[in-house]
């Protein structure tokens, strides 16, 4: 899948993603082709009663491409993993859904996004959510850990998708549910680094 990519290509992609999300960690405003923040959450039909409980600073940091929670119910008491959690809005919402007997963990490779997620979490006062600065291709969790894995607009950015999906499969419990919102290519993605940095999925 990535055999036409050199080490140099992969490094450039990773550096480009790190630079973009270093900026997004501050604010997603104007950095995406689609609505972000409260507007994005409303259009994607997120649960309004949960969104209304979140401080504005948390809501404004949302930049997802879809609503993974529309794909299935998350039960009270469940353990949820958010792969590529960014500013952690989905992770925090998952924590609210699972309640005090459940937990939600967000992982992201960009340290600035994890810092934003942690500051978002702090102002919500929610205690069953945590974040880790980890690459999705190499998760630190034991096999069969999570009931649900969510991911929003991230896997398309990762060159080694097979490694990510294998890791997600490993950490899901048997019978566990993967719910993903992501970008997929409509036509052949241009074979140049600039286009891939903007978005590539192949």
């Amino acid at each position, binding site marked *: 899948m990535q055999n036409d990519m050199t080490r140099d290509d992969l490094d450039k992609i990773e550096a480009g993603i790190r630079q973009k999300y270093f900026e997004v960690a501050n604010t997603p405003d104007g950095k*995406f082709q689609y609505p972000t923040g409260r507007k994005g959450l409303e259009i994607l039909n997120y649960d309004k009663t949960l969104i209304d409980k979140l401080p504005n600073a948390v809501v404004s940091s949302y930049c997802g*491409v879809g609503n993974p929670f529309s794909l*299935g119910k998350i039960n009270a008491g469940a353990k949820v993993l958010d792969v590529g959690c960014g500013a952690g809005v989905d992770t925090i919402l998952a924590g609210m859904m699972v309640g005090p007997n459940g937990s939600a963990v967000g992982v992201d490779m960009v340290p600035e996004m994890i810092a934003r997620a942690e500051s978002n979490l702090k102002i919500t006062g929610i205690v069953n959510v945590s974040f880790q600065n980890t690459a999705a291709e190499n998760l630190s969790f034991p096999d069969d850990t999570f009931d649900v894995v969510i991911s929003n607009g991230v896997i398309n950015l990762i060159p080694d998708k097979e490694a990510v999906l294998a890791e997600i499969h490993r950490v899901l419990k048997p019978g566990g549910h*993967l719910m993903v919102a992501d970008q997929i290519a409509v036509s052949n993605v241009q074979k140049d680094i600039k286009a891939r940095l903007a978005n590539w999925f192949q």
Partner: protein
Amino acid sequence: MDFLAMLKKAGFSDTQMVAETGFNSSPKTKGTLFRAFKAARAVEKNGKAGGDFLSKFQEFFDETYAQGALDRKTKHLIALGASLAAGCEA
């Protein structure tokens, strides 16, 4: 390889592309919702042979009931009808 094929290769079952979200990052990509399950296969832990056999069976099962000209629900209903007509009450 598309995303559904990658999910199957990673071992997921019941893989499904559910809907487009309308949130597109570029003119060449579209926001899309996917879901998949890790098969619940308790027997697999009893031994490799059993696991291999079951995963082959699961592949056959997934392929049989995959969305095609007929949707998944219709295929399941046809199978149910055929089972009942054959006198299978299990």
